[in-house]
Structure formats: structure tokens, C-alpha cells
């Protein structure tokens, strides 16, 4: 039946997956659910690496030449979409931050000073004082 194909590439890739998972296991300890999902996805990936015949047969069944392509094609489509979505999210986040910063700026806006009138009034005028604003709006 299906045979494990332990090539140097398979060893390296599974080793990388294991190392990544161990790293995340140590650093993401508080996020147990994410770790579990990651474990399942990584295990599935490792299975496909060690038993390439699985992907190969599925690929032949649906009419794709190589087993690798069976995995790669959907992955590329998903990644492109993900990249576009994340760009849009970043754009929207940026618009929100902009509005937030702007609202803060508007609420903190104040008159610098009143450069009219005698000079000493400039020294006294506080940027927040109501009088300096009032003297300018008359």
C-alpha cells in the first residue's frame, strides 16, 4: 500500500515543522487553542510530506499531474486572497487611526496666542486660557 518516503527533503521539512511547533509551544503557552489548531495543521502537513502518495493519488483523481500541485494550487489562491484582505484591513485600520488621532487633535486644538495687542500680553497668555481665545474672537 502506501509507503513512507523518507527522503532528505522530507526529513528537513518535518524537522522544520517540529522546530517551529516547539518554538511556538514555548512562546505561545497561554494560547492553547491556537496551539491545538497549529498542531493539527502541522501534523496534516507532515503526513502529506512523509506519505506523498496520498496527495499523488488525490491529484490523479481530480486530474492534476503532481501531488505537490494538488496542495500548492489551492494554497496559492488562498494566500493571494489573504494578502489582499490583509491590505484592505490595514487600510481600514489606518483610516480609523487617522480619524481617532484627528478627533484628539481637534478636541485639543487651542489658540497659540494673540499676536495682536501689546506685546506683554503674549507672554502672559496661556494657550489654554479662555481669555486668550475670547480676546481673539471679538
Amino acid at each position, binding site marked *: 500500500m502506501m509507503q513512507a518516503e523518507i527522503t532528505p527533503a522530507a526529513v528537513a521539512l518535518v524537522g522544520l515543522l517540529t522546530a517551529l511547533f516547539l518554538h511556538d509551544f514555548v512562546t505561545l503557552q497561554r494560547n492553547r487553542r491556537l496551539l491545538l489548531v497549529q498542531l493539527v495543521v502541522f501534523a496534516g502537513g507532515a503526513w502529506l510530506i512523509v506519505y506523498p502518495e496520498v496527495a499523488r493519488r488525490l491529484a490523479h483523481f481530480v486530474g492534476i499531474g503532481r501531488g505537490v500541485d494538488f496542495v500548492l494550487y489551492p494554497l496559492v489562491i488562498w494566500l493571494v486572497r489573504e494578502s489582499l484582505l490583509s491590505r484592505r484591513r490595514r487600510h481600514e485600520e489606518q483610516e480609523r487611526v*487617522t480619524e481617532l488621532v484627528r478627533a484628539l487633535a481637534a478636541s485639543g486644538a*487651542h489658540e*497659540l496666542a494673540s499676536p*495682536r495687542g501689546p506685546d506683554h500680553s503674549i507672554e502672559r497668555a496661556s494657550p489654554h486660557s479662555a481669555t486668550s481665545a475670547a480676546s481673539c474672537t471679538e
Partner: protein
Amino acid sequence: MPAFNEEERLARTLCELASAIPASDQVCVFLVDDGSAPAIDENAVRAAILEDRLEDRLEGRAGNDRSPRARRMRIVVARHAVNLGQGAALETARRLALDPRWQPSGGPFEAFVTMDSDGQHRGSDVLALAAAIAAGADVALGDRFAGGSEVPTSRRALLALARAFERATTGLRLSDVHNGLRAFGPRAIAGMRIRQNRMAHATEISQSISRASAERAEDDQLSVVEVPVSVRYSDASLAKGQRASGAVSIVVDLFHGFLFSDGSRDGSHPRGPR
């Protein structure tokens, strides 16, 4: 007036502007500190203005204690908590200028002028633009090529490229698209919402102008004039200004804006507070 990490040149710009304004005019400067680090020291700016006035008096230019110049210049300061970009700062200033809180006593503002804070624009040119608006134009754009500025060759090449791009994308035939010295009348300012936070706002403004014209009836078009202005280039302002590599990020920003905006770019369907 957007300002980022300017203080000395900002103070000088404000002083020059103040001295250019005739006593009969009422002017309010909306100064937006775009997250400068450290924050623009208002006391230092105030002190510089004060000193400038004292010097004037010592030299006998003003003649008396109450110098008539700059009597009508108010300065409203707002600060972005983080740096957002020149486009964002201009939009903040635009909102402030339309905010009832800062309206002048004698009715709404008659002209809205944008200028840089690093001293490259002249106070007299600001008045020239405002005068063009007062004469009936809806949009007056500074044209540094007609104004006899000494534009460095590298700048000329870059700006020529920008001009070609602008003509292709907006259909407007403007000679100096990336000049920060612009003026808008009350009819035009409402539609000039800027959503490009960084340097792509110049293109966005041109697009807004051309769209505003396209949406209006034949006999109700926005009138756009170009006014010769002179731009002073200094090493510091050149170093801070746009580079050729910036053109790429402008195109990317424009593309993102095109992709992700919801079609309300003209500002007639605002999503946030205006």
C-alpha cells in the same frame, strides 16, 4: 499649515506671514503639528514671534507699541498624537477651518490657503492666492515655474514626471501639481476631503478638482487659476522633501486608495465627523 519637526523655520514662516498681512485682513492660521518628536514647542514659537515684533519696533519699522501688522493673525494649534503624514495634517487643518468653533466673528472664511511650514513659501504669495480667490476663482494653485523660482534640475525632472502622470489620470492640465501652496474658495473647499494621508494627497486634490468640475453643470464649473509663486529651496527642505523613490510609494498609495475606498472619495458622504 502642516508642520513636522519644524520649529525655527516654522517660527520664521509665521513671522513672515504676519508681516505680509495688511492690517485690514483677518487671518487665522491652522497649524497642525503632525506628531513631531519632540512636540513643537509653542512657547518657543511664541517667543520667536514676540522677538521678531520687538526687533521691528527697535528698528522703528512699526512706529508704535501696537504694531498694525499681524493684528489680525490668530494661530490655532492642533497636534496629531502620532505622525500621520502631510495629507492627513492638511485634512485636519481643513476640518478645523470648517469647524464652527474657529469661525471668525465677521462671517465664514473667504479663502482657504495651504502652505508649507519650512519657509519655502512666501507670505506675499499667500496673499496673491487669497486675492485670486477673492477675485472670483474657486481654486488658485501656486505655479513655481512661472514665478521665477530657482528649481533644481533634479526637482524639475521629478516634477515633470509627476505632471505627466497627473495629466494622464485627472485630465487637468496643470503646470505645477505638487506645489503645497494652494487656495480654495468656500465653494471648492467642501469637496476637497483628503483621504491620502501621505504624499499622494497632491494627486488626490487634483482628482477632487477635476471630479468636482465633472459633477457640476456646464455653467457652474469650478474656476481654476494658476498664480505664479516663488519657492525658496534650502538644503534642509530639499533633504526633507520628496525623492524619486517617493514616487513609487505615491503610486502604491493611490492604488490602495482606488482599491479600498468605497466610492465616497468626494467627501459628499462622509464617514467620520467633518
